[in-house]
């Protein structure tokens, strides 16, 4: 008795996958970019109002024995942390979408594989995350220094080490893509 073969996985045609990635990426980008703008502007405004308006007038005021500037610093820091986290979540989605579009635009027409999209995602994510976290650190630095002068330096060291790792993984993903393109090019030459 012949054994039953396991059903083959239905292969998604290249053109269908290309169209799916392209449409989904465009929709995701349209959804996420406005909310990124909103949260970034809100974070900058919290920073500006806190530093320029409310912290100066809170100087010298004590609330049940606790200095008000430090309480305000903590509240602003917590608000900034929540806003930056939201930005990072949306940036992750936007980067995924941008990577999908990049894979569709840069590669040959209708020749997009999930692996290629993954490489672009890793590369884009690394670069964008480093930029976003560096900018977020600039928002946090003053408030962290107000809590403790050493805190800002410790966070900066952590950010630098993490940024080096992110850039290294981005470069590795890009080099994988370059390797793939060059091997395809070499095959054509033969």
């Amino acid at each position, binding site marked *: 008795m012949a054994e039953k073969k396991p059903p083959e996985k239905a292969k998604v045609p290249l053109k269908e996958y290309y169209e799916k990635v392209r449409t989904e990426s465009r929709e995701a980008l349209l959804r996420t970019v406005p909310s990124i703008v909103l949260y970034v502007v809100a974070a900058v405004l919290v920073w500006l109002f806190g530093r320029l308006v409310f912290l100066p007038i*809170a100087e010298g005021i004590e609330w049940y024995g606790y200095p008000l500037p430090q309480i305000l610093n903590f509240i602003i820091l917590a608000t900034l942390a929540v806003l930056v986290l939201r930005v990072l979540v949306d940036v992750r989605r936007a980067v995924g979408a941008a990577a999908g579009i990049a894979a569709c635009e840069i590669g040959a027409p209708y020749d997009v594989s999930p692996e290629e999209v993954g490489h672009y995602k890793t590369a884009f994510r690394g670069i964008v995350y480093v930029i976003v976290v560096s900018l977020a650190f600039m928002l946090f630095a003053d408030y962290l220094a107000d809590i403790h002068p050493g805190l800002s330096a410790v966070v900066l060291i952590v950010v630098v080490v993490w940024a080096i790792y992110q850039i290294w993984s981005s470069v590795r993903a890009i080099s994988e893509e370059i390797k793939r393109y060059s091997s395809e090019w070499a095959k054509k030459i033969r």
Partner: protein
Amino acid sequence: MRLLTKITVLSIILLADLLFFSVLPTFFPETFEAVFQMTPWPDDVEKTFAIFFGLAIAVLSSSAIVYISVQHIRKSLQQRVAK
């Protein structure tokens, strides 16, 4: 409510808030102190609550302005993409 009316109302709230907390203590400190001395509670507690409310109003009103503008841009972008 129309878009322009919403933005105008929110801008007026933001402007009034910033004028009270930024201009008054800098250029008219006596008036600023007098506002808090008029009420029967200790000045520090009043000032603390005023600062918290002021910060919340400033952040909420400015975020609302940005939110309304972003929603408007998003709608017009979607309409352009649909065309």
